[in-house]
């Protein structure tokens, strides 16, 4: 019908012929990457931009500070345990605490969080017991399911594979007319995955209540961002998909909290997705199986040591009169103690049950798997393993 009408017209504009189902005006101006907003509230010296400083309660500020310190204490202890041979390969969060924790501070229990594997600071804040996370990284199946009442996806291992399901959860929220939202994080490396582009597109098309946090930490194992993408502004992926986007200093906890808060508000109000590119740095190893001295210059790491997210937040809270040397020390000590208690709990937990591998694949175990289970149990008996 539309084509017929156009043929009837004497003068048909080229846009209408090219694209009959879009509005008649065609915007040919190029995308201006300079339009992407940049946010920093707390600079690397801990000085606050008074005009942007959020009004957060002392309790929230101190809880967030403690979560960052706890995240780092957990990180250090995990590293020790791994080097002692008592922990599996794991991905440290060291140096990214502001970025990781700041993205979940505005979430409620009904919201969802879909993390990549470098996210335990946020998982702790979402309610994962420390010993549960230790169990997970130590190779126990029962470490994977989120605790009761925690709406998180288990972290993804295949890079970027969780971003589409996270968008699907957001689409489910729209389907069920809920006012909740999803935060999903991924890295500069994952930005190269086709599935991540598809996820951004689906979220935009369906106005899914999703906050994408692209943690640009400079490195995907040994691949620097300059080899990852010709466009070093990962927030620009938002422009390409029609998603509002912002670049945030990912080592500035206040900026991360504010940007995420605004994005979750948009999501809850039915305004759709937001993309936050958080600029941070992977201070430590990719995983404990990695040796960064092979591929990166330690001078680069030193530059980022000066931008430590915890130190700058400590300076800010000290200047505000909320912390002093003694309370800083106490916080570090109590976090260390909490981690040690969790570690001992973890050491005291049951060994892995080898008999349960068939139990969770289907709602009920099909006949053929029942037979395989019997075969497997015979194998265990032959090896002298008690069941």
């Amino acid at each position: 019908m539309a084509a017929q009408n156009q043929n009837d017209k004497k003068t048909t504009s080229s846009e209408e012929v090219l694209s009959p189902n879009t509005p008649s005006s065609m915007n040919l101006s190029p995308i201006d990457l300079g339009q992407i907003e940049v946010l920093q509230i707390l600079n690397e010296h801990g000085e606050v931009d008074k005009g942007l400083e959020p009004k957060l309660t002392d309790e929230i500020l101190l809880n967030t500070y403690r979560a960052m310190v706890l995240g780092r204490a957990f990180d250090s202890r995990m590293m020790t345990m791994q080097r002692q041979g008592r922990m599996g390969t794991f991905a440290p969060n060291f140096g990214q605490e502001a970025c990781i924790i700041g993205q979940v501070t505005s979430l409620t229990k009904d919201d969802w969080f879909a993390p990549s594997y470098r996210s335990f600071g946020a998982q702790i804040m979402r309610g994962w017991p420390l010993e549960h996370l230790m169990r997970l990284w130590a190779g126990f199946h029962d470490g994977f399911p989120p605790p009761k009442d925690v709406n998180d996806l288990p972290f993804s291992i295949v890079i970027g594979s969780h971003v589409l399901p996270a968008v699907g959860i957001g689409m489910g929220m729209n389907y069920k007319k809920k006012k909740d939202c999803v935060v999903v994080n991924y890295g500069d490396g994952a930005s190269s995955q086709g599935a991540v582009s598809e996820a951004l597109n689906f979220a935009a098309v369906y106005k899914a209540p999703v906050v994408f946090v692209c943690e640009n930490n400079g490195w995907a194992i040994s691949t620097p961002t300059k080899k990852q993408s010709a466009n070093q502004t990962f927030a620009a992926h938002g422009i390409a998909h029609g998603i509002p986007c912002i670049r945030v200093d990912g080592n500035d906890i206040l900026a991360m909290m504010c940007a995420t808060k605004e994005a979750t508000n948009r999501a809850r109000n039915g305004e759709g997705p937001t993309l936050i590119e958080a600029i941070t740095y992977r201070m430590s190893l990719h995983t404990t199986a990695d040796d960064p001295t092979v591929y990166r210059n330690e001078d680069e790491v030193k530059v980022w040591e000066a931008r430590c997210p915890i130190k700058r937040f400590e300076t800010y809270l000290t200047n505000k009169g909320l912390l002093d040397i003694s309370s800083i020390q106490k916080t570090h000590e109590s976090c260390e103690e909490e981690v040690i208690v969790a570690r001992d709990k973890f050491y005291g937990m049951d060994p892995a049950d080898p008999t349960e591998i068939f139990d969770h694949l289907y709602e009920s175990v099909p006949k053929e798997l029942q037979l395989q289970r019997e075969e497997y149990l015979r194998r265990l008996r032959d090896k002298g393993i008690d069941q």
Partner: protein
Amino acid sequence: MSKLTMVEALNLAMDQEMARDKNVCLMGEDIGVNGGVFRTTKDLQKTHGEERVMDTPLAECGIVGTAVGMAVYGVRPVVEIQFSGFTMQAFDQIEQNMARLRNRTRGKYTVPMVLRTPYGGGIRAVEHHSESREAYWAHTPGLKVVVPSGPRNARALLAASIRDNDPVIFYEPKAVYRAFREEVPEEPETMELGKAEIVREGKDITLITYGAMMRPCKEAVLDLAEDHNIDVELIDLLTISPMDTETLAESVQKTGHCVIVNEGQRNCGVAAEIIARLNEAAFDCLEAPIKRITGFDVPFPYFQIEEHFLPESEEIVSAVKETLDWQ
């Protein structure tokens, strides 16, 4: 009762399941206004609305991945991938999430979704439109793989798949879509997944097949009965995974002979798996080696020559006779 094609029967199943459960939704390319490229979802958007019959962007991985998330959140998506050859784009999400999220979370999250897709040759389609790769999905732990063969079982199996709490790959034999009509009851009907059906009882030899290959097999069974006085037991597998080994083994224990027909490639295919299972479960009853007629281990040929690639009834007749004559 009315006489429906498979396309109409599938449409009926989706329409009724959507009316029964408001969480059932449809997702796919061109399934809404257009009713799907095969018109399987014709008028369903008119009946159930745009929010429940979703025309998606053109990205198979995106469709499956977001459907997984919807399913985790308690929606029950029925996804259409236009042609089974295009499911390869979604392999990532099928393997990483659809199939294993329940297992990864030890049952905390389930993925109650169905991935419908037309498979197989015989409709003179362009390249990448005629694949039969059900063996991939049967090889993937966590999926159920269902293949109907006619309008009535297509309707009942699709309804059962939609109600199932596990993820189902629902392979629709597109050569059968409009090939014939069958009586399909108006009232909702389901069939248990994981059960093979003995379509015709016989005493001489067991013929196992599924999907579009049921038609040449049925022709062969008639020829064998009329011209050669051979009494074939014909089994329709219906569910590839989990496989109903018991029904297959019981039949072969009775007949002592077996021929398997599948359209997909031979190497590590469904026929190979059935032979291995029968070796374990019925070896001492076998009076001859089991024969298989399958697609060859080459990409599905372009349509000028596809009829030579697809197994036909004459070949099945010969294979049955050779198996019975073996000594």
